[in-house]
């Protein structure tokens, strides 16, 4: 059964949210997900690039108000 880890990076200065995301993905098993909340304006661009480069799956990316929520699924070790 897959599990989900939550990172609340609201108010966290860049590039720390992506550093935290990478660390979380390393800890998880293939198929597990990370839900990350971030209010940095550039976060959607950084998240999409990071997923593309690292070949992990960006399952969804939504914005409510100033807060972006991304869900990333670990695709490989």
């Amino acid at each position, binding site marked *: 059964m897959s599990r989900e880890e939550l990172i609340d990076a609201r108010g966290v200065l*860049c*590039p*720390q949210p992506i550093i935290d995301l*990478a660390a979380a993905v390393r800890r998880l098993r293939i198929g597990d997900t990370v839900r990350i909340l971030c209010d940095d*304006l550039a976060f959607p661009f950084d998240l999409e690039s*990071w997923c*593309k*480069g690292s070949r992990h799956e960006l399952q969804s990316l939504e914005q409510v108000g100033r807060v972006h929520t991304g869900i990333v699924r670990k695709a490989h070790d």
Partner: protein
Amino acid sequence: MIQDAGNSRPAGGGKAVAMLSGGLDSTLALKLILDQGVEVVGVNFSTGFCLTDHAQQIHRSGRDPKKLRNEALRAGGDFAIPVEIIDIADEYLDIVKYPKHGYGKNVNPCIDCRIMMMTRAKRFMEEIGADFVFTGEVLGQRPKSQHRRAMETIAAQSGLGDRLVRPLSAKLLAPTRPEREGILDRELLMDFHGRDRKPQITLAEALGVTEWPQPAGGCCYLTDPNYAKVVFDLFAHEGRDEVSREDMILCKVGRHFRVNGAKVIVGRFEEENQFLRNFGGSRARLETMDVVGPLTLIDAELNDALVETAARLTARYSDGKGTSKLRVRVTNNGQSWELEVEPFTPETCHEFMVR
């Protein structure tokens, strides 16, 4: 953006670590190495002094968020290579305070910086089993860290030695180990030299690299002359040992004044005021009460004369600067009180300004 990332790569083998800023030079170096069939993992170091990071932290309204993105991650996405961001901010502060190889024109310890980053990149190279590290450095492009002797010093002191490749100037430098071992074909590397960007732009066109951040030429706060003045003033008044990462961040924000040795910081626009409000910690704060004005921090123990001077500075940079009296609210240690002050003249402000 690139047009043919990942295509037409010969089978050269080998694995490398790219020191990647995402600027034009490191992007071209990356493309040259990928085109030789080498597997690449990027590293990008977070020092706490990157202009883009700061712009993200103080994003002025109306600014295109795409211009605030991390360009190393962008390049990694475009070329489909993983990029590891490594936080070296704490150890980096030490070399900013005590650079063994001295500063460049401002507070930039470029040689120490390169040695630190390459030492860390070497460790990463060993951790992931890579064969070499490469950078986008160009011989003669930057006066402090990219002349031949400095580049040799950096390669030696980082421990990388001949496992450090500069693809854009490789033909002007001694052959490296991956060239000797046949992982890299030296003939496919470049011979760029100096500050002229035309060869890079021509190469970018030839390789199908169509997008890179502007302006080029470095992304580091430490080369900013105004920032350097504020930092050297801080070192002189506080002592280098006492200066923290937080102090260095505050040096980036607002107008800085010295009032009998005490530091006063006045925000320049709303986003800076907000940053100072969030980041100010337990420092005393001042704000005008009846007109729009800046947020001011006092980074020192308070006395009446200091508070009055800070209040008059605050009033000067408010919308009420032309009036004879303004009310300013002071907040410190959970207590709040008001002062009525006359705004300073520009000449008086200038006397207190760190410069």
